[in-house]
């Protein structure tokens, strides 16, 4: 690897700092066959380049007498910054007395003016760069004691040095041993350590022939940086097979993410972020060991990052709009409007309408959904208040309570103070809690539901039947309404078993004395079937899609007319 660095010097960057254009041009001509030369007219410009440039410099060639900021001043300033100190400086001077002073101030060497012959200058530059690189690599602890792969810091530094010289395509990959914690628990730490060492050995075999390097990052993940190859799947599979045969646990699984042919402009850390994003994509997908960072993933990632970046602005500017979908009670002769569900829509100023299916899961994952929920609750509560005032009619609206909200210990307080602000009773705001929250932390959910109900909030169990719900949950959590997952409604008309299942759930709900809401009802046939089986409340496109508050008012007005 070292040899590899030394034989490809041409793309290292050298900063030539001199106020005289002729001198800069002359030095550039001397150095450019071997280095990429960047010029600066004075110390201040050089400082700016040294501290802000994304690509590192390998050397500074510094004139001493310059306007704005002299070479001495730059040497002085350089002491402040670790980044700048890492780049060696050769001072160019015609002044003997300045030579000693500059060495004392941290210069690595000096070249006198008029310049020596080009070969001499090149040889001196080369020597200083090499000395400095050796020194900075030695600074890092080279090896991970357990696996004998490079340590993460050393690995990063090595790549930083290596990258400018690597010609052709390079791949960045992350490799992750799944369920490693379990392995440690079940078979002991010594066994876990053995597996890590074995994995490192297998990885070394992958990279040894490809001028690649590898390191262990945290615990059970590894990074690989090597020449591009097309058979990553095969390589990972090979490691997986060997590892399985060595491991006492049958469940040991490798997961790899590969960012192929990395963008040479992208910093190393971001390259591995991309590899990791690919790796995360197959989390839980046991059919695949290797995933690649591709254009689709890239665009998706960019889009997500953009949404995350824009959410605060969206909340501030009111781009998050609350739509209302009516729920009708169908147990009587004619459907009666009984409540509505508040659903969020994002009218993005540049991207247009963004589907909640796109952004809700994203914000659920990073916890920002709490912010969105709070915003929807406030808006919905305000709307219920407005309708109450306008029509003298209270239409309860249900709002979603996400999994992160469940761990918010001030949740009850927040909701109660909202009611107070808009002059509502607790029954005016109904809370929908998704069934899957039960499996996260049943204990917390049970106590929260109890406390919210004692405040007077009706609780709806949302998406019932979509996850791994146990019927036991229905008896341990005191709920007021059960919402059937819309997938049931879709499938029940297609196969008998689903239909029978819906019927069973409705029977259980009846037995528990809990009314049921069917979501996603689109056709009259669905409605009649549900009605026949005893479902009381219907929500879906059959009646109306979610609509803005202004349009929803029409449903209220119609209902008032019909009931009088």
């Amino acid at each position, binding site marked *: 690897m070292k040899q590899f660095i030394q034989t490809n010097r041409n793309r290292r960057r050298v900063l030539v700092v001199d106020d005289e254009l002729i001198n800069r041009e002359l030095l550039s*001509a001397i150095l450019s066959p071997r280095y990429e030369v960047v010029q600066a007219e004075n110390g201040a410009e050089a400082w700016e380049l040294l501290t802000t440039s994304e690509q590192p410099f390998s050397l500074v060639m510094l004139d001493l007498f310059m306007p704005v900021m002299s070479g001495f001043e730059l040497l002085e300033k350089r002491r402040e910054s670790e980044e700048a100190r890492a780049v060696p400086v050769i001072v160019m001077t015609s002044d003997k007395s300045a030579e000693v002073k500059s060495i004392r101030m941290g210069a690595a060497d000096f070249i006198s003016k008029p310049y020596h012959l080009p070969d001499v200058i090149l040889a001196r530059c080369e020597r200083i760069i090499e000395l400095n690189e050796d020194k900075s690599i030695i600074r890092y602890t080279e090896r991970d004691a357990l696996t004998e792969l490079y340590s993460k810091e050393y690995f990063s530094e090595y790549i930083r040095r290596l990258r400018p010289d690597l010609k052709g395509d390079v791949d960045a990959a992350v490799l992750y041993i799944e369920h490693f914690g379990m392995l440690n628990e079940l078979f002991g730490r010594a066994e876990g350590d053995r597996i890590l060492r074995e994995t490192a050995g297998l990885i070394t075999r992958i990279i040894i022939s490809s001028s690649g390097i590898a390191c262990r990052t945290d615990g059970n993940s590894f990074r690989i940086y090597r020449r591009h190859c097309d058979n990553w799947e095969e390589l990972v599979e090979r490691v997986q097979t060997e590892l399985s045969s060595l491991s006492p646990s049958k469940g040991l699984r490798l997961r790899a993410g590969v960012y192929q042919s990395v963008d040479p402009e992208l910093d190393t850390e971001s390259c591995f972020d991309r590899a990791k994003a690919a790796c995360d994509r197959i989390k839980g997908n046991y059919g695949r060991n290797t995933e690649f960072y591709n254009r689709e993933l890239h665009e998706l990632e960019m889009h997500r990052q953009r949404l995350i970046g824009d959410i605060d602005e969206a909340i501030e500017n009111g781009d998050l709009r609350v739509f209302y979908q009516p729920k009708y009670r169908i147990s009587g002769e004619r459907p009666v409007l009984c409540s509505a569900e508040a659903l969020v829509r994002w009218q993005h100023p540049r991207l247009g309408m963004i589907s909640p299916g796109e952004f809700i899961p994203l914000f659920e994952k990073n916890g920002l959904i709490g912010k969105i929920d709070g915003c929807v609750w406030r808006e919905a509560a305000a709307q219920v208040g407005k309708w109450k005032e306008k029509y003298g009619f209270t239409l309860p609206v249900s709002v979603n309570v996400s999994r992160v909200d469940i761990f918010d210990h001030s949740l009850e307080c927040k909701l109660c103070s909202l009611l107070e602000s808009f002059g509502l009773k607790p029954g005016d705001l109904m809370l929908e809690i998704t069934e899957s929250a039960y499996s996260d932390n049943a204990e917390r959910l049970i106590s929260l539901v109890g406390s919210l109900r004692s405040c007077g909030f009706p609780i709806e169990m949302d998406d019932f039947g979509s996850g791994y719900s146990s019927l036991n949950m229905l008896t341990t959590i005191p709920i007021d309404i059960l919402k059937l997952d819309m997938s049931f409604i879709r499938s029940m008309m297609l196969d008998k078993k689903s239909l029978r299942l819906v019927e069973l759930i409705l029977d259980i709900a009846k037995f528990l004395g809990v009314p049921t809401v069917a979501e996603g009802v689109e056709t009259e046939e669905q409605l009649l079937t549900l009605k026949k089986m005893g479902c009381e409340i219907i929500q879906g496109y059959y009646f109306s899609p979610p609509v803005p508050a202004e349009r929803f008012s029409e449903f209220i007005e119609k209902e008032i007319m019909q009931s009088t």
Partner: protein
Amino acid sequence: MITIEKLSGFGANTAEGLARCCGSEALYLKLVNMVPDEEAFGRLSRAIGENDRDAAFEAVHALKGVLGNLSLTPMYDVASRLTELLRSRSETDCEPMLVELLKKRDELRELCAG
């Protein structure tokens, strides 16, 4: 148009200058062509006119570096003497050396233009 021959006639050590330019005649002549317009000449004349010896030192020091690098010996020698004079902070009049240096510069300018 200036040529290596004309420069040698002027007294420049063209062999050395060329070697420093990695043997490239084109580069050497291009850089030499830039010399008469060096703004340090203006700075030097102004500083000496205003008797600002520090500014004069900086300007001539800069010129000396450039002239030396291009091995323009007749000019480099004058610039070196003037640099040392200014460095020594003696009261000696700088004007004659400045005139000498500017005269050489104008000669070079003519060579470049001619």
